[in-house]
């Protein structure tokens, strides 16, 4: 009985505030836009009994989804978000792996400090860390001042308000999410394996390729999901660092909802985004469960 209470409280909370909201999004994505409050029809009228439910069901259609396929803004935004998310996951991995590797090779007494230095930005406001790049990347910003000062360029580079700035922003803000799981995997690695490989005639590079890399796989997978999935729906970074040409679906959804007040279309955008992300989310959950089981 107590076990039932322990399970049901968090369970019901998540059902009510995580799962049910998605069903509502799904429902509204099938409704029609209307100039009313709330701005969609039909609304479910339970007081009318079965007739109300029937009327509501007959009013649902796939119109918003057809609209999404007809206007090329939407599918371009999905594709461009996908491209930005995939490329920035790769960049974050390329930047993050050497840091995690360096940390795992560092002397034992340095490690707590290095760990703290990685965690510190993670606790610092995301918004502020994105904002910090505005002053660096702008036309008269610090990066251009530096590059012109040492004479590498004569004209200031335009970086802010382009996709390049978005990539920099994503790599910068999501870096701890990549470094921490990889470091956790590398730290568990038994060093005698590497010594054995070297004794058996492997070069250090071959040993890295054959032992370190495969054994850090779980960390790389976890880190990549932690970067890729949220980056796909990112809103803050493209709106602060990206330009008018930066198309990302998170921004489109936000504007559809707040600027155009088109709730059914915003909901349809969210439903499709969720369908795209459901496979990576399930894979991420499996990977985490597997790691937790392994930790036992």
């Amino acid at each position, binding site marked *: 009985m107590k076990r039932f209470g322990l399970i049901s409280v*968090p*369970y019901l909370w998540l059902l009510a505030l995580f799962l049910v909201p998605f069903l509502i999004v799904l429902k509204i994505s099938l409704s029609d836009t209307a100039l009313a409050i709330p701005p969609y029809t039909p609304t479910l009228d339970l007081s009318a009994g079965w007739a109300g439910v029937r009327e509501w069901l007959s009013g649902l259609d796939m119109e918003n989804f057809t609209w999404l396929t007809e206007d090329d803004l939407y599918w371009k935004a999905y594709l461009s978000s996908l491209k930005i998310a995939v490329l920035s996951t790769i960049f974050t991995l390329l930047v993050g792996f*050497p*840091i995690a590797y360096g940390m795992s090779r560092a002397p034992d007494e340095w490690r707590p400090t290095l760990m*703290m*230095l990685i965690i510190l*930005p993670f606790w610092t406001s995301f918004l502020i860390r994105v904002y910090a790049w505005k002053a660096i990347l702008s036309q008269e910003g610090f990066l251009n001042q530096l590059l012109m000062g040492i004479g590498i360029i004569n004209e200031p580079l335009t970086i802010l308000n382009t996709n390049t700035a978005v990539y920099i922003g994503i790599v910068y803000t999501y870096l701890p999410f990549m470094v921490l799981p990889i470091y956790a995997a590398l730290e568990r690695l038994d060093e005698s394996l590497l010594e054995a490989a070297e004794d058996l005639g492997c070069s250090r590079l071959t040993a890295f390729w054959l032992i370190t890399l495969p054994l850090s796989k779980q960390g790389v997978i976890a880190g990549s999901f932690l970067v890729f999935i*949220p980056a796909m729906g990112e809103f803050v970074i493209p709106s602060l660092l990206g330009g008018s040409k930066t198309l990302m679906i*998170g921004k489109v959804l936000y504007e559809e909802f*707040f600027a155009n007040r088109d709730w059914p279309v915003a909901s349809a955008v969210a439903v499709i985004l969720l369908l795209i992300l459901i496979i990576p989310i399930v894979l991420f959950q499996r990977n985490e469960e597997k790691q937790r089981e392994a930790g036992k």
Partner: protein
Amino acid sequence: MRRLSWFNTVSLTLGFAFLYIPMLILIVYSFNGGKLVTVWSGFSTKWYGELFRNEAFLDAAWVTLKVAVVSSTIATVLGTMAAYVMVRAGRFRGRTLFSGMIYAPLVMPEVITGLSLLLLFIAIGLDRGVLTIVLAHTTFSMCYVSVVVSSRLVTFDQSLEEAALDLGCTGFEAFRLVTLPIIAPAVISGWLLAFTLSLDDLVIASFTSGPSSTTLPIKIFSAVRLGVSPEINALSTIMITLVAVGVIGASLSSKRTIAKRAKDEQEAIQ
């Protein structure tokens, strides 16, 4: 003692420079006297003064703090319960769904979570305000708490609990007297994580807040959307300093606890 190879030294130096230089620039330029944010024109603390005279910012900071304290506390209770269920409850009907609902919010794009919660609040006729932000923040941060706490619970020796039960404790007493003291560090870091996530959240708060409940990130976002503002640099510096003091303090105290435990164990053996 191991030494770092030149490759590792270079990658660590460059990596940490990349992480910290942007924040250092922000901090240094918050003491810049001029209105232009990228040109140094003498040391001054005038933007801090401006910030503390700005009523709108102070109000927003107060709302944010209230929301963060309440939501992180509820999230810690719910998240600890959820962690217990995940690690200890074994199999039960709907376990996969439960674990899915714990892990999915960790990676769910905020725009989706925010939109869906807003539509829920409207469907049940709940006015948007502090309450709705608290509900929203509790929901996503309880999942973070549960991940942090469950990672401590899996390494925990269950026979201690069983011993307490054998010695006549009720289930709750065993939890309060044995389990809780041991998982306390994880519960505290879960609370802190939930607290900072709530302080930091922009997207979900913009969906679920009402006109009378603007939070600090919403205020900051509307101020920096168009450009760089020296007042926000000052505010950022204050926030970065608070976090740095907190994180460094926490890591020093955990170091001391570990050292003390090692010493105690050493003495116990002798």
